[in-house]
């Protein structure tokens, strides 16, 4: 219960940070990326503020043997660079510049009910679903995660 409350509050605070920081305004995102035009560096301050806080707290939190309400820290361990990472990031950047939304602000902006957000988020979820389907085609022998030893 505590873990879910923390997840919920974390989501609320994240949304407030996005909205206050200007990330939910696609024109501001485009102005941040428009180095050759009327450049608005504001969103660099969003990134700096977030990293300044998290880089410090991350190091303090990681001294703990485990999180408060969970058994283990679920952290990425990969350190290799591959074409999927770079190709995926490149594709994401094109979509970010084109639509002015990254995933968090897009979901938060659903609350506005504005048509461009609804269209963008529908397509974004479709893109994620498409990825899942292609992954499934690539690895047809992969077991479905839910069917573990419980039924055996």
């Amino acid at each position, binding site marked *: 219960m505590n873990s879910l409350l923390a997840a919920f509050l974390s989501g609320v605070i994240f949304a407030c940070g996005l909205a206050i920081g200007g990330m939910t305004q696609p024109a501001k995102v485009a102005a941040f990326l428009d180095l050759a035009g009327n450049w608005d560096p504001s969103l660099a301050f969003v990134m700096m503020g977030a990293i300044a806080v998290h880089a410090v707290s991350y190091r303090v939190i990681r001294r703990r043997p485990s999180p408060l309400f969970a058994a283990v820290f679920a952290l990425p361990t990969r350190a290799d660079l591959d074409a999927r990472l770079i190709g995926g*990031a490149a594709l994401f950047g094109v979509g970010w510049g084109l639509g002015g939304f990254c995933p968090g602000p897009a979901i938060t902006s659903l609350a506005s009910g504005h048509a461009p957000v609804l269209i963008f988020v529908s397509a974004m979820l479709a893109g994620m679903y498409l990825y899942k389907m292609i992954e499934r085609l690539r690895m047809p022998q992969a077991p479905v995660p839910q069917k573990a030893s419980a039924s055996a």
Partner: protein
Amino acid sequence: MEHFTPLPSLLGGMLIGLSASMLLLCDGKIAGISGILGGIIQPITHDTLWRIVFVAGLLSGGFLFQLFAPEVFTFGLERSTGALILAGLFVGFGTRLGNGCTSGHGVCGISRLSVRSIVATVTFMATGILTVFVINHLVGGAL
């Protein structure tokens, strides 16, 4: 630079950092939005509910602003439906393929000094800048 907002943006960023720290301290999870959404679309047993609840929190925060400060949701770009669909598909597919977005790579990953996240962030910033350059300076600002 007439819309430059360094202080609200810095404060917003610090709230994002606080949120990511809270999720890590309490639940041991990374606040990467594309990864959280991806885990709802490709569910794994006992690892889905917190994701749904986090997204409910994001939406609830959004509703608070829609009630008290709806101007934060000004779209402000000239984009056709086709361009929005293409943008959404690229963001959805690209973030899953590249294992992260602005939050997971740009904030959490860089805070951990992850080489993968630093390379991903430089890459999506570069292609984002290139895309906006093409739209604003080669095709006239609308697409």
